[in-house]
């Protein structure tokens, strides 16, 4: 049972990380949202599996929250925003896809090299999980800086939160309050982002950051 628990948790975590990579090379907004939904699903599955294998019922709540918020509400809302505002559906990367992938792989290497020696006392699962979630966080950051579109920056931010929740469910004994607060902060951030997108759109008729930057009065 423990072996199976370890393997399954490891696999689900790896799926979350894989989805992070998938986010990096998407060229269309809708497929970006689909990948993000899948990442959230994988995350919810991880949380549920941890709840089951470690017998910690409060993690079911985390799983449920993730499922409802991240996998349903946010993607649907973003989808509607994109349709309503008639945003151009392609993403212009600021950094080439190939280069982004290379950078992503090296970030994963860095986080593994970093986490594994630091956490020698912890259990194997915690260590792997921490390495995975740090990678997800770093990839989310990379996504935020390598995309010019505001919606994809929002998605990058959300995937950073996914990394944090992955870390939270992986470490045994994390109280529910932490997860709840993370979930609510994501919600708040999402609302703020939504309002911002509307305002930016109203003002500038575009969500392409490169075009918006030219309105600041200073040249890049």
């Amino acid at each position, binding site marked *: 049972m423990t072996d199976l628990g370890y393997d399954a948790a490891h696999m689900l975590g790896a799926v979350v990380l894989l989805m992070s990579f998938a986010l990096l090379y998407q060229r269309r907004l809708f497929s970006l949202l689909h990948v993000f939904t899948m990442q959230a699903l994988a995350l919810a599955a991880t949380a549920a599996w941890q709840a089951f294998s470690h017998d910690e019922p409060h993690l079911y709540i985390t799983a449920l929250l993730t499922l409802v918020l991240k996998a349903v509400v946010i993607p649907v809302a973003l989808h509607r925003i994109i349709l309503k505002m008639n945003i151009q559906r392609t993403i212009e990367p*600021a950094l080439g896809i190939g280069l982004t992938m290379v950078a992503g792989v090296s*970030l994963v290497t*860095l*986080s593994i090299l*970093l986490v594994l*020696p630091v956490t020698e006392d912890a259990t194997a699962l915690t260590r792997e999980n921490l390495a995975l979630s740090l990678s997800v966080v*770093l990839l989310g*950051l990379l996504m935020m800086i390598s995309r*010019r579109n505001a919606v994809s920056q929002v998605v990058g931010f959300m995937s950073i939160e996914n990394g944090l929740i992955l870390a939270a469910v992986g470490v045994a004994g994390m109280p529910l309050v932490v997860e709840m607060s993370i979930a609510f902060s994501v919600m708040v951030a999402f609302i703020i982002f939504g309002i911002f997108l509307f305002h930016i759109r109203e003002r500038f008729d575009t969500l392409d950051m490169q075009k918006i930057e030219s309105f*600041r009065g200073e040249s890049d």
Partner: protein
Amino acid sequence: MGFVVSAIAFLFVMAATGVAARRLPSAPAIVYGGSAAACAVVVLWAAATLAGGGGVAEGWVLPIGLPWIGTHLRADALSAFFLLIVNFGGITASLFGWGYERAHRDSHAGPVLPLFPLFLAAMNMVLIADDAFAFLVSWESMSLASWLLVLSTHREEGTPRAARLYLIMASFGTACLLLAFGLLATAHGDYSFDAIRAHAPSVSAAAFCVVLVLLGAGSKAGLVPLHVWLPLAHSAAPSHVSALMSGVMTKVAVYAMIRVLFDLLGEPVWWWGAVMLGFGALTAVMGVLYALMQEDVKRLLAYSTVENIGAIVIALGLALVFKASHTPVIAALALTAGLLHVANHSLFKSLLFFTAGAVLTATGSRDLGRLGGLIHRMPTTAVLALVGAAAISALPPLNGFVGEWLLFQAILNGPALPEWSLKIEIAVVGAALALATALAGACFVRFYGIAFLGRPRSRAAIEATEVGTGMRLGMAVPAALCVALGVLPTPLIRLFEPAVRLMVEAGPFDDRAYQPWFWLAPTSAIGNSYNGLIMLAVIALLSVLLVLVIHRRASDRLRLSIPWGCGFDGPDPAAVTQYTASSFGQPIRRAFGSTVFRARDQVEMPEPGDTRPARLTVRWTDPAWALLFTPIATAVDRLAERASRLQFMTIRRYLTLMFLALVVLLVMVAVTQR
């Protein structure tokens, strides 16, 4: 202890009253009366404590401030002495301020009433703080309260600049003190003074700490070259606040130096004192030279404060040097001289700022070139100003003389030290101090002669009238004490002997069997002694003789003077032909200023037949600005310009920068972990 804490609480109540009742016509009377009463309670408590052998051993821990740490308060003999000085200054400033406020009703001025008690309370808190947090918080509140008080005259030209400079220097000073206390507490992480005393810092930490305290407290006290803010800020504030800042707040800075250098740092090393001696001498000479160049009365007084702080720092340096060489009796003599000068300076500097305030009230001017002849129009103020000027010039039998006399006794003990470099340094410092004292005499002859003697130089000076009772009372009290302490200094020295004993473990009168109360003969003064009563009698006798001789021999003699009026004989001689402040300062400006200040006189003489007046222009540069502050300001500007480019980047760039910083830090962790 309870008295002090409740007095401070009462001062806070007064500050609140000052806010609430500011529209009431009786508000100044309430607030200044309440402040004076609170200060009087503390003065009585401090005097009683000192007379009873000094200080409270048990501290108080109040549950306010940082959680689980609280605020440690304690008043030992040193605190009690400084409480006495500060609150006495507070009483006289409240008295004077009450009259001054009534005479200067300016609806545009910023609020003074709520801040004045706050300032007093903060100074008291610094003195009784017994942990580094309480000390720094009170220190910063003191700075901020006085900064706001300076800003209350914000409509006057020059005040905004003075206030900005003061804020920068005060922040710098607090930062230095913060670092100093951080160094003191690093070893054990406990910020209470007891814990710091119990753990002596390492040699290098102590050295850094000495430098930081000299920078931090020195910038507040006005050590050259950190004095630049002091004359501007002190002279910009309302006069009773100027008196508090100059006469009292600088003493709080001196307290900080004594507390850290003599008490918290443990056993001193001789070079600490050597550094202080050097800076003290520089400060004394430069301060008085600056003062001689000033035309503004209050600025002149503020620079004279710089000079006196120099003298006090010399005394502290001597005490440290002798303490380090294990001759505590001489250290006690030097520290006694320093503390006595602290008391004296707080008295006569308050008095002189009050007279400057009175002159400002009566004439509306602080410019020496627009005063003159005030002795006929403001006789009381003139007599009191004369007492202050004579006391600060160290003329016997006034208190300034006693302090300087004791200080020179300590300097004359310099050859008793083992280090040759110190023997020579002390001789040089002694010469510099003698020069500064003599120049201070010249400076105050100039001040008094130009402002009060001669003929009025402006319409305002002709129409001046004597100031009100509150102001006169505020001046008379310190003047009376200047005379009393000059004639009978020994009781005061006896009173603060516990403080000296606490710091250097010896008293000034040790191993001397009998010490009468009217006789000042400290041990190790090489057999010298001072008796104020004899001095007073001799001076009174000589003065009477002189007056008699003048009246007998000179008054009724025929006097002839040339017809062009410089002999002041005509019915309305032109006041412009009088000696002026700048002509009085010219010889000294020529002798010292041409090198130190690069002063240049330029005379513009009109052609014959031209009716323009001739014009004398004096140009001088301040070496502290030219050599230190202007280069620093330029460098800061350049750096700021570089850094401001960071403010004009796109969001993505910022994110990239943060991301890169994160990655670099993570790589560093990864590399250093293995």
